[in-house]
């Protein structure tokens, strides 16, 4: 399919493979062309991100006050800062995907250092090899506590990890294409035995051979003295895993309920590239399905995308903790997904309670003048600086400018006219410091309260 890789397509790519961006970033992607833009995002090592890294280091989020333990807010800030300011947005987007996929919550794990280290693991393998990732996750201290593998011992197996490894992390219950059941209870028992003795010692993975079941097991039709490594190896090679991971990545990047043919195409890439996620994600981002009308704006922004998108698109100066409370009220607390199945996506984010929080968070941003006591200097939006150098002068120009900057958002004429009328209330809009401080801020609030703005 010949796709005109215009600003709409580039913005779509940047929203899905990242969190949206500025007009300059979109223009840059347009100039690279479709394939060049995807390669730029996927081959992220070639992008210098040292400015974000040094800015993050200077923040000292991870150095708790004397006598205090590392707080959840601190590790949330540390991650959100990365999302807000990275030049490698796909890495953070995939880190978020893996956090949702291998959903682990601090509410049970408790040790924030473990949660932080797991997050670093997801970042390290963001576009890495899926087999290596699953093996590392199986040995990850946070995961071992989260799914009780530290109590999984020979003769008294705890099958929690073994079950979720299949149900949620690799094959899924039923094949995403054929609908066939992927495993039996006997497979769960066998896998549970294979992971006996995979525990922690002094905060690190420890293979306790005394508690490992070395006897023969039959797993998915194969028999041997399997260890956890063998189980992971068998699972990542299953066709069902190829289908499941492909399905889930398509839902994340493209649209819900992807067609079986599409799942199979991606699964083939997964298999032929030996579980290399970079090849899989690159294929998805370059697919016709990704560029199709069906995909553009077909998802709903999760709270992280909502907040991070605003910060990036409006070039805010933002302390992450300015958003922690509202993100929680939008139903997403990073490092604390509700269950091992992660967050529900799509419409689940939207209800009367969470929408009101979104509108009011948008208002908080639009009216963040930085120096007020309420803002505690956590947040600054500078509308004058934002529109500087733009030729917008009329109400229509201004509306279009922000519909573009925060999207581009395709709205009906009646919606656009209502926004124009807002600027013209009390007389034809002219650009002054006073109108910028009042009406342009109000306009930005309203644009972010559009139903279209909730889409991704």
């Amino acid at each position, binding site marked *: 399919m010949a796709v005109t890789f215009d600003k709409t397509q580039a913005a779509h790519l940047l929203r899905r493979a990242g969190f949206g961006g500025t007009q300059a970033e979109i223009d840059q992607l347009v100039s690279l062309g479709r394939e060049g833009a995807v390669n730029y995002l996927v081959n992220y090592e070639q992008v210098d991100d040292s400015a974000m890294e040094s800015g993050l280091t200077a923040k000292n989020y991870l150095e708790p006050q004397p006598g205090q333990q590392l707080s959840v807010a601190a590790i949330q800030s540390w991650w959100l800062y990365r999302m807000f300011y990275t030049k490698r947005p796909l890495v953070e987007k995939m880190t978020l995907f893996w956090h949702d996929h291998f959903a682990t919550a601090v509410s049970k794990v408790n040790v924030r250092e473990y949660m932080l280290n797991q997050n670093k693991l997801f970042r390290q393998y963001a576009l890495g090899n899926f087999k290596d990732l699953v093996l590392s996750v199986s040995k990850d201290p946070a995961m071992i506590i989260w799914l009780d593998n530290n109590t999984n011992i020979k003769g008294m197996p705890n099958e929690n990890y073994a079950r979720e490894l299949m149900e949620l992390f690799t094959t899924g*219950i039923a094949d995403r294409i054929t609908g066939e059941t992927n495993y039996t209870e006997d497979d769960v028992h066998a896998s549970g035995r294979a992971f006996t003795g995979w525990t922690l010692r002094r905060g690190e993975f420890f293979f306790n051979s005394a508690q490992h079941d070395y006897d023969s097991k039959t797993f998915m039709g194969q028999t041997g003295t399997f260890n956890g490594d063998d189980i992971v190896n068998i699972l990542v090679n299953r066709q069902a895993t190829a289908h499941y991971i492909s399905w889930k990545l398509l839902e994340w990047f493209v649209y819900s309920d992807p067609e079986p043919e599409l799942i199979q195409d991606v699964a083939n890439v997964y298999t032929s590239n030996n579980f290399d996620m970079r090849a899989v994600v690159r294929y998805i981002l370059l697919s016709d399905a990704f560029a199709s009308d069906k995909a553009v704006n077909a998802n709903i922004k999760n709270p992280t995308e909502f907040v991070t998108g605003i910060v990036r698109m409006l070039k805010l100066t933002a302390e992450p903790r300015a958003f922690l409370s509202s993100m929680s*009220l939008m139903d997403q607390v990073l490092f604390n997904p509700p269950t091992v199945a992660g967050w529900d996506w799509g419409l689940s984010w939207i209800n009367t309670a969470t929408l009101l929080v979104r509108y009011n968070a948008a208002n908080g941003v639009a009216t963040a003048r930085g120096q007020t006591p309420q803002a505690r200097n956590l947040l600054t939006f500078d509308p004058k600086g934002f529109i500087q150098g733009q030729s917008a002068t009329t109400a229509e120009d201004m509306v279009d400018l922000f519909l573009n900057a925060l999207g581009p958002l395709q709205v009906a004429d009646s919606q656009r006219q209502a926004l124009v009328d807002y600027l013209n209330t009390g007389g034809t809009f002219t650009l002054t410091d006073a109108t910028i401080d009042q009406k342009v801020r109000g306009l930005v609030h309203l644009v972010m309260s559009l139903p279209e703005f909730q889409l991704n």
Partner: protein
Amino acid sequence: MQANGNGKVVKNGLNRRTFLKRGVTFVALSLVSRYMMMQTSPNHDSVFGQASTQAGNNKLLVIVQLTGGNDGLNTVIPYKNGLYYDARPTLAVPDSQVLALDSAAGIGLNPNLKNMKQFFDDGKLAVINGVGYPEANRSHFRSTDIWMSGAPDKVVGTGWIGRYLDHSIQQFHGSSFPAANVQGVLPLTLKGDTVVVPSIQSLESYTFQTDPKFPADRDEQLAVFNAINSPTNSSDSYLKLLSSSGLQAVSSSQDLQTAAAKYTSSVTFPTDPFGQALKLVSQILTSGLGTQVMHVAIGGFDTHANQNTATSNQPTLLSTVDGGLKALYDDLVGHGIADEVSIMTFSEFGRRVRENGSQGTDHGTAAPMFVLGNSVKGGLYGDYPSLTQLDGNGDLVFNVDFRQVYTTVLEDWLAADASTILDRSYTKLGLFK
């Protein structure tokens, strides 16, 4: 259905995410619309399971969370037990100051709970001793989740009240506020799979906020908001739902403002944040919006050091709770609904019997709960935990499972089937008249 704590797995292998996508033409995202959908969706049996039909009374519940782990031993005090004084050389309340509840048993209240003592004497306060659960978790987060979900054995994404609301959804049609949290984030307690429960920081903030610098601009922004969220000819089902939910979010917040504006009271609530939160609780309960359960929290109970002398010390906190609940009770009396409201306190755990070296106490286990109201059968419930037979950590061994309390509240107060909400039956305590 796998018993793995996976909140997405519903019956018939259909997960909630899939359902929401498939059901997109039916699902609107307010409680009202979900109720309507339940009436029209051919699949509602498989989705909603056993939507309860037996619930349907007008009893109201206020849940008060004492966040941080309230020291139960200094709240309900075994003041004739020498072991208590041995274990608490600097923190013990002198027996002369304790407000006796049962002098034969030697059990009494902290002197800062004067109003609770009066409620007890009036037969309106149930004090449930030694409430806990097996294999107590001493992490604030995890134990809070356990108390809120009602599920010690697995991680679940819904709360016990949230599931009650899900099961009783037909009772709440028409209400955007079947339950509400006041201040802070929405507690797991109130999260259900289908209901929507708001968390209200303050009356002033639970509204479509606009720039405080230009209050005159507000009406204009509201009008534009309504215009840009008005139904369009768009065939995009997401957009339709976003618009209709958005309009309802704002209009229901206005309903709350309107209803709350009618509130008057002869009671002066304490000016502290907890007192003001309770005032908001009362405003919402008396507003006629159909709110059945309210949740409110007061923090500061994590008293590892200087428990009796720190800036935010336990005696002061207990006094704040005592004064606040007295004001709430009086206000409910004044509004003529005191017979219909029960107030319940809980904390994620109690504290260690032996005080630590910092004149504080560390995380413990079992602790007392209070249930207060005109319809409550006042008195002492549950055996006071033994001070000699402690667990391996030197903590109290619980005598009453917290799910017994929940079961009693769900069945005898809210007229719900507790076993479907808590997965099994627990012996009730007979807390209500």
